[in-house]
């Protein structure tokens, strides 16, 4: 069981007014930014349910954008984010939707550009977050661990090849989550680790056959 820590409860130090709707939104944005890892031409934010209904009042839209721009949860610029030069440089817009199959505080980030990517996440309370989906793959990312995210062609032996490379780095795996679209089609792997992966290790993973996406996602600092 993944337990929360005392530190989660007595933090973050943040810009108000809502941990789930402001700080959680910033953290979702920061993690989505780390996953996308490029400069998009355009971003659409789809806010669902409570995020849609009370998001404006809680600065959820400001928080999501701040995260995408790489601002920390206690950044004093969040209050006036739309007026910052950083925000004026990118093309973004917001949609407010209802879907009771989704979490009360759910968001989709739709990145368009050199790479198109849709990332879905939830703000699950007290500023804690989960990314649930990247494109069509289920993932489980909470920003608490350095994570290796892989998308590759489903075939026997990939998991053991990857974990062997990580083992050569003498790094411990905290959790491993796999999913695939269909047998022999695209598959994804989410590996949360203790510590750091070396460049060499990442290169070796990238060199494996039929690896489409290799992302090393750093844990969130705020």
């Amino acid at each position, binding site marked *: 069981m993944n337990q929360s820590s005392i530190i*989660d409860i*007595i933090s973050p*130090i943040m*810009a108000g*007014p809502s941990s789930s709707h402001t700080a959680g939104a910033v953290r979702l944005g920061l993690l989505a930014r780390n996953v996308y890892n490029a400069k998009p031409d355009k971003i659409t934010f789809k806010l669902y349910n409570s995020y849609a209904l009370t998001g*404006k009042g809680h600065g959820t839209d400001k928080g999501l954008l701040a995260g995408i721009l790489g601002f920390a949860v206690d950044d004093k610029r969040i209050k006036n984010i739309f007026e910052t030069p950083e925000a004026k440089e990118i093309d973004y817009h917001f949609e407010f939707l209802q879907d009771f199959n989704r979490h009360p505080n759910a968001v989709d980030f739709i990145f368009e550009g050199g790479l198109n990517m849709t990332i879905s996440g939830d703000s699950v309370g007290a500023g804690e977050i989960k990314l649930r989906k990247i494109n069509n793959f289920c993932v489980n990312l909470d920003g608490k661990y350095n994570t290796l995210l892989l998308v590759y062609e489903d075939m026997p032996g990939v998991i053991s090849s990857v974990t062997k490379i990580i083992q050569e780095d003498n790094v411990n795996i905290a959790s491993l989550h796999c999913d695939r679209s269909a047998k022999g089609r695209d598959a994804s792997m989410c590996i949360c680790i203790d510590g750091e992966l070396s460049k060499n290790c990442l290169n070796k993973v990238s060199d494996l056959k039929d690896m489409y996406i290799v992302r090393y996602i750093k844990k969130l600092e705020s």
Partner: protein
Amino acid sequence: MKHNITEFRQLYYACKEQNKKIYEIALDYEASRGENPEYKVRLQAKKSLDAMKEAITTGLKCTEPSPSGMSGDDCDKLQNSKHNFILGQTAKKIMTYALATSEQNLRMGTIVACPTAGSCGIVPAVLIAFAEDNNIKECDQINALITAGEVGRLVANKMSLAGAVGGCQAECGVASAMAAAALTQMRGGSVKQIINAVALALKNILGLTCDPVCGLVEIPCVKRNPFLAIHAVTASELAMSDIISKIPIDEVVDAMEQTGQLMSPLLKESSQGGLAKTKTAIALEKNILK
């Protein structure tokens, strides 16, 4: 497998067996899980405590209205009120500090989510006002904050602390229980008394709705902070008198989780029911959210 502490019962027996305080067991347990050695938790507690004090200091001096214009001047009114406070000066200070912090929050000022931002005024108000009036040393304030953190952690193991999932009982309610624990710790209460203070505080806020007017953390959130700060004091007073909760704490938490699930989504941070759909709220909505 290492010894797990995921329920209050386990925390209580660990304290009893090892003859330690809640914060000591909590620090040992955090350290045993590998990622948060004692110095790291203490450092965060110190940073958070300092940020809480700064939010209070700033909030006490500020009368800037919230962006909506609906709130922001209540702390000033309370500070300058000359009537006789029947609960005494420390209680007045607690209410004032809770409002100061909460009003800073709605101005998008810097606060500490403890456990959440909507409930950010409760723990600091009780902890800091009591500490000031009773010359509690900083290290003991930090120990009290860690005690509060452990309470929040154990509740969070069972249920989400989001108003949208569990209602306000999961936010201000849990903050009040955490404050009750911190206060009882600073007053030299026993482990049993601290845990009972938590149970009593939680038991008496079950079903608290989250129905913010216009979807903003203002009405009723701002004034709810001083209310639930005093609620924590009541819990501590009863527990210090050895009054016990007939329903054990872990069962109270289970009841709270179930209550959260049974509450309609209309009353859980969607602003579609309760106070948020009163005539006045709808009128405010028309004026503010244009």
